[in-house]
Structures are given as C-alpha cells and as structure tokens.
C-alpha cells in the first residue's frame, strides 16, 4: 500500500488510462499510478480527492472494483468548474490523487443478511464497488437486491453491467426512471416505490443507500416502513470536503466530519441531524 498517499496532503500525479462517457453528463476515469507498479487499495464506499492542476480539488467516490486496486476508477457528473475541467481529460493526461479517505460500506458486517443496494442517479457509482465485492463472495449473503432510480432512461448508468447483474439468477435488480415517453418498457416512478416489492426479509436485511440527500430521506422512511431498523440502514453523505482528514472542518455534520467519520454512516448515528435543514 502506498502509505504516503494516506499520510500527506500532497496529491500524487496519476495518469489517465481510459475515459468513458457514461451519459450526457457523467463520465468515468480510469487512473493508473505514474510508475505503474504501485496499487491504491481501497474499501467500497471510500473516496479520493482528485486535483485538476490549476483548477481545484474535489472529493469523488471510487467506483471501481476493490479487487483491482491497480486501477483507480472514478465516475462523476459534470456539475462544477473542476468536474467540467475533468470532463476534458484524455488518456495519458495527469490528475492529482489523494486518498483513499472515509468509511466503507459494511459489506463484511452484512454477511448472512439479505442485501438491499438502493441507488439514486449518480449514487450508483459509490455503490458499485460494494456490488462487486458482494458478488465476488455471493455465497456469504442471503438475497441480493439492487434498486436503481434515475431521471430518464438516458441517465441510466453502467447499462452493460446492469444488464449483466439483471441476468444473474442470484440477483434481483429493479430499475425505474422518474419520467419517460410512451414506448419505454421499463418502470416509471421514484425509486422509493420499488422498496415495497423487494424480495427480502426485513428482519434480516442490510440496506446501503446512496443518492441525493432528499432521495435518501424518503428512502429511509420507506425502509423503516418495511421494518428495516435504522441500525441496518447505511447512507452515504456528501458535504463540502476539503482536507479529507477531518482537520479543516469544512465537512462538519453534527459532531462528525463526513470525510473522516463518513461518508458512509449507519443511519442511527446521524438520524438526529438528518432532518435538520441548517446543517
């Protein structure tokens, strides 16, 4: 493991190996360390700070396979100056990387349980490493259900992989979009409407949820209605993360720092802050 990356504030330059346009406003970067020999082990749910030289640094979740730490994969959406600049990157360009940071999805803790992966929009990206890890040790879990919601059919991420997951007999995958024109053969409706039909045992399920905060709020309500306790619901929070080490205080969330104590939290740990609009 490259300890210097964990211990320093200085980004290491990585080389862009591959760029994939996922949808009209999302893209995936595959990065390699400059010397090619080092790896950057990470746990599903963690993020890196990515630095576009001369533009700025942003926290981006890792969306790749944790069993391939030699390939650092990030999927992001073009939403601001830095990601807009990243969108112009081409293979062999350079990008600064610090990390990985943050808490992981509780994949090992969930051994023996049914799993619900619930993603909204780009929220599927931070969950994909958890899906990889779960499927690589499929026998250790009960039912595995993936629920994914996007705005329109054109916004569906990782289409090819989703089809592969859907075709597995040991995975139940349901997708839905918020709007579609006539002729769309899939589901229309918000992702929360899929929860009631997920074939899991609520008493023995672990839910991992990632998406816009408002989506997670309604998702948690629906999961609780289904009988899944707040100690078995995990959410990935997003705040203005800067240092990634819990030092600068930019990402303070209640008494915690999202970069260090999160981004993945058991819902019970943050439930008192979840409904407070000011934080």
């Amino acid at each position: 493991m490259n300890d210097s990356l964990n211990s320093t504030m200085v980004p290491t330059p990585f080389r862009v190996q591959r760029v994939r346009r996922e949808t009209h406003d999302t893209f995936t970067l595959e990065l390699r360390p400059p010397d090619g020999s080092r790896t950057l082990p990470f746990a599903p749910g963690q993020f890196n700070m990515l630095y576009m030289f001369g533009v700025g640094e942003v926290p981006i979740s890792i969306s790749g396979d944790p069993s391939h730490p030699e390939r650092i994969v990030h999927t992001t959406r073009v939403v601001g100056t830095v990601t807009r600049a990243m969108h112009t990157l081409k293979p062999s360009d350079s990008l600064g990387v610090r990390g990985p940071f943050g808490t992981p999805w509780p994949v090992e803790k969930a051994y023996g349980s049914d799993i619900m992966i619930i993603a909204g929009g780009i929220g599927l990206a931070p969950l994909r490493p958890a899906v990889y890890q779960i499927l690589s040790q499929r026998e250790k879990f009960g039912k595995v259900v993936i629920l994914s919601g996007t705005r329109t059919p054109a916004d569906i991420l990782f289409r090819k992989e989703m089809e592969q997951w859907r075709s597995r007999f040991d995975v139940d995958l349901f997708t839905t979009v918020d709007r579609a024109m006539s002729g769309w053969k899939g589901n229309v409706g918000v992702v929360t409407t899929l929860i009631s039909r997920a074939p899991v045992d609520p008493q023995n399920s672990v839910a991992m949820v990632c998406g816009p905060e408002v989506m997670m709020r309604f998702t948690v309500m629906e999961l609780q209605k289904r009988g899944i306790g707040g100690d078995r619901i995990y959410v990935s929070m997003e705040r203005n993360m800067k240092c990634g080490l819990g030092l600068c205080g930019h990402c303070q969330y209640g008494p915690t720092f999202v970069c260090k104590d999160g981004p993945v939290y058991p819902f019970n740990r943050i439930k008192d802050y979840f409904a407070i609009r000011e934080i």
Partner: protein
Amino acid sequence: MENLEQLLEHHPFFKGLEPKHIKLVAGCGSNVKFEAGEFLFKEGEEANAFFILRRGKIAVEAFAAERGSIIIDTLNDGDILGWSWLIPPYNWHFDAKAVELTRAVALDARCLRTKCEEDHDLGYELLKRFAQIIEDRLQATRIQLLDLYSVSS
C-alpha cells in the same frame, strides 16, 4: 387453482375484509387479459372498472400536444389500477396501456358502487383501502416533482 374469491382474500389490498364483503366484491369481478400495446382505458372515457393486476405491466400515461404520450407511472404484479370509478363524474383522467401481456381482475364499477350504497360498511372498507393507495401515489408524485436527480440536487 384459486377462484376469484380466494384470489381477493389473499390479496394484500383486501386483507382484513370480512368474508361476506369479499363475496360481494368477487361478484363484480371478472378475469381480463390485455396484449402488449392494448389500452385498458383512455382519458375521458367512463371509469367503469378498477383492476387488480395479476401479472404484467401497465403504463399510466398522459398525452401532451407536441410531446406525445408521457408515462407518469407504471404498475406491476399485485398493484391496483384506477380510482376514478369512485369519484363523480366517473371518468378516467389518464390513459392506461399494457406494456406487456397483462392479466388482471376487473371489478365492475356500477356493480360495486351499487353494493357500496347498499352496504356502507363495505363502502367504508373499500374507501379506506383506496385512500391508502391515493396517499401512496400522491407521495410518490410529490417526490417525483422534486426532480431528485437534477443538477442542482
């Protein structure tokens, strides 16, 4: 093979309904089948039934000039379709189209309305259940209106 009464009895929507009421409701029911692309009903038509979807998928659509038909919601196995039969003037507000081969139970609206007028307990029990569905769909629509995945979110 389940008969209509047994089918209703085991459906979550009718959970807790007295056997005599199940019998009354079943008396208004019939099995129906829709091919992919076939309309169950169209906006403005008389709402003369509601449907319990046994297997298949239905798209609830609205037509907007220059944009075509927009899917508002999809309903799947076990879902209940239609409450306009309960509310005057008993006309559908949307189109409902089978996305794939769909089998359903259709409950005749006139028959049910008459039975509800004659037996207010039955009417109240049905209204309670439809109120829950209306509430669930209203909540879902509100969340849909939030446009959760827009760039600003």
